[in-house]
């Protein structure tokens, strides 16, 4: 990074990493995302909240083009990362996904060893020049995902043999290991106990130093704890988006207010 950019960041606190304009998503005839504009800043945690089925996951999956894999899904509008249109013809979604990591709603470790789970990304992207470097990447990723202590003695055991919460942290380690710039997390804590949740939240807070993190959550407390900015989705619309403190203490839209006070959802 050059000095000029650093100064610029100081001025605005944080620059825009991801910007969406007029995004519409259709599953066949279902209109799942309706005309969403959003700016996600770098080095910040942005939370997506909203009732079930409102399109949080769908929008999240637009950011790394995972929706491309769904036959019926059609995305319209413009999403840029670092001012580059990710839906441009020239963009290879595979390269995009190395830059934008993802943790899924349901833990989905590969049916391979714990080590191979984490090492897979770095291997295919050529991030390590030798075994020692790879070992180091794996270890630090597992440590960052707060699971190192539990698995360090059985790295060659199958990842699918872990408990649900451990599996999810393994998936987080796997996503972190590829050194993405943006990390998308779809309800990463839905399978975790309070202690693991606290660890993951701590991790998210730490990840903020280097990445921009987008997290979908059903827990208001979690959104309030980990995020700096919050977006509230309702029936495919982005209803309200702003500083997390603002949204929770002083919501401008009635729907946001009723949702966070527990009246819709």
């Amino acid at each position, binding site marked *: 990074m050059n000095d000029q950019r650093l100064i610029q960041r100081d001025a605005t606190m944080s620059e825009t990493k991801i910007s969406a304009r007029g995004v519409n998503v259709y599953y066949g005839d279902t209109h799942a995302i309706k005309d969403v504009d959003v700016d996600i800043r770098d080095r910040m945690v942005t939370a997506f909240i909203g009732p079930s089925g409102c399109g949080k996951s769908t929008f999240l999956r637009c950011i790394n083009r995972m929706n491309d894999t769904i036959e019926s899904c059609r995305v319209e509008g413009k999403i840029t990362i670092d001012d580059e249109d990710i839906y441009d013809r020239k963009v290879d979604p595979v390269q995009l996904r190395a830059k934008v990591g993802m943790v899924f709603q349901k833990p*989905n470790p*590969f049916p391979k060893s714990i080590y191979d789970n984490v090492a897979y990304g770095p291997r295919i992207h050529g991030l390590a020049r030798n075994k020692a470097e790879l070992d180091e990447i794996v270890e630090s990723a597992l440590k960052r995902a707060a699971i190192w202590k539990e698995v360090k003695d059985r790295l060659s055991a199958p990842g699918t043999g872990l408990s649900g919460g451990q599996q999810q942290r393994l998936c987080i380690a796997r996503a972190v290991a590829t050194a993405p710039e943006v990390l998308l997390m779809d309800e990463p804590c839905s399978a975790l106990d309070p202690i693991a949740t606290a660890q993951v939240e701590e991790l998210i807070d730490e990840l903020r130093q280097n990445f921009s993190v987008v997290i979908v959550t059903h827990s208001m407390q979690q959104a309030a704890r980990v995020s700096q900015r919050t977006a509230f989705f309702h029936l495919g619309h982005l209803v309200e988006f702003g500083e997390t403190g603002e949204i929770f203490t002083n919501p401008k839209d009635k729907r946001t207010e009723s949702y966070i006070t527990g009246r819709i959802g």
Partner: protein
Amino acid sequence: MTDATAEGPRPARAHHGSLLVKDARTKARNAAETRFRLYGAIAVGIAVVALVGLLSSILYNGASAFRQTFITLNVYLDPDVLDKNGNRNVEEISKVSTFGYAPLIEAAFETAFENPEIGIEGVTASDAEDLISKEAAAQLRRYVLANPGEIGQTVEFEFLANGRIDGYYKGRVTMQSAERDSNVSPEQLQLADQLKAAGLLSTHFNWDFLTLADASENRPEAAGLGVAIIGSLYMMLVVLVLSLPIGVATSIYLEEFAPKNWFTDIIEVNIANLAAVPSIVFGILGLAIFINFAGLPQSAPIVGGLVLTLMTLPTIIIATRASLKAVPPSIRDAALGVGASKMQSVFHHVLPLAMPGILTGTIIGLAQALGETAPLLLIGMVAFVRDFPAAPPEGLFDPAAALPVQVYNWTQRADPAFTERASGAIIVLLVFLLFMNAVAILLRRRFERRW
């Protein structure tokens, strides 16, 4: 709550009786379950009985094909007959045909009759020669051509006994049946008994059944499965080499990469239909395309293999697609999510998980192909083939037989000795199938251990 009445009527509280007493519904359900289990057990029982019946009948009829009666004789390799010029020149010796060797065997019986224990009135040495397979002269000639230096010596030979004599020791031929049989007389059987008593006749395991080529109608004792086994192995080789890569590649493409449109739908429907096409149709296709159009030789394993490949492909494709479908989509998402390409996600994650299913499907397909008869009849694999095909790849174009066709062939022949051999051939076929299934299970274990 106590003030329920104030809030209006509430649904009556359900009353469950004692848990120690089964109510009527539970009893009915339990009875239904018991009945269902009984039906299942009966079905399995019927299947087991049928299987055991089938297997034991085949074993009963066929096991004896692996044992054969042999007669040991000391043959004097008479130089006056075999090598008149006395120069041991193989070319000149080879001018003596198998007919020239018959007197040597006759002479060997004359010698055997010098033993006072052997000899039946009215059975001459020439009659005794009929105890031995017509194959014996050829065996003798082969030996002499291979060892010309032993001409002039007396060598001990173990000859195949004639099919009737063999049948006598397997219970197929009796003294009574021999009386009505123009091919064997009761006296000859008595002579055989004497030979046996003298230790010159014995029945033991017969490797020749597995290694010799087919033999003509009147020498069942010399008929073997060698050519058929090699032909079947060659065909399986062709089928495996062609259908596994083509089938798996097709399935991966259709399942993972192909766009879903009317065209791929048509392909899909057609593959499913092909799996149901009667195999004889593939035979006609093979005859028309590979033999008449492409000009490949008849009754060659390559043509058989190609036809069986066409037949096996749908099976492999369907099995492979099913096992690819069974891989959870979350694994694909996970791979794509860390930035793997579509191909990496398929080859690194999906394919290994689908491997047990693919292998099982392939081996089932191969096993089906191994037992297939009808299409092979059409492409001329019924031919009577005495010569072993060469080593592959050239050998794939030489005429050969196939195991199931050999079974069919032998059941068509008049001599009851061939019935026994047909059952024996079925046993060999079953052993091959068992072996393939065992390999399938083993491979599956291996791949599953890697989760």
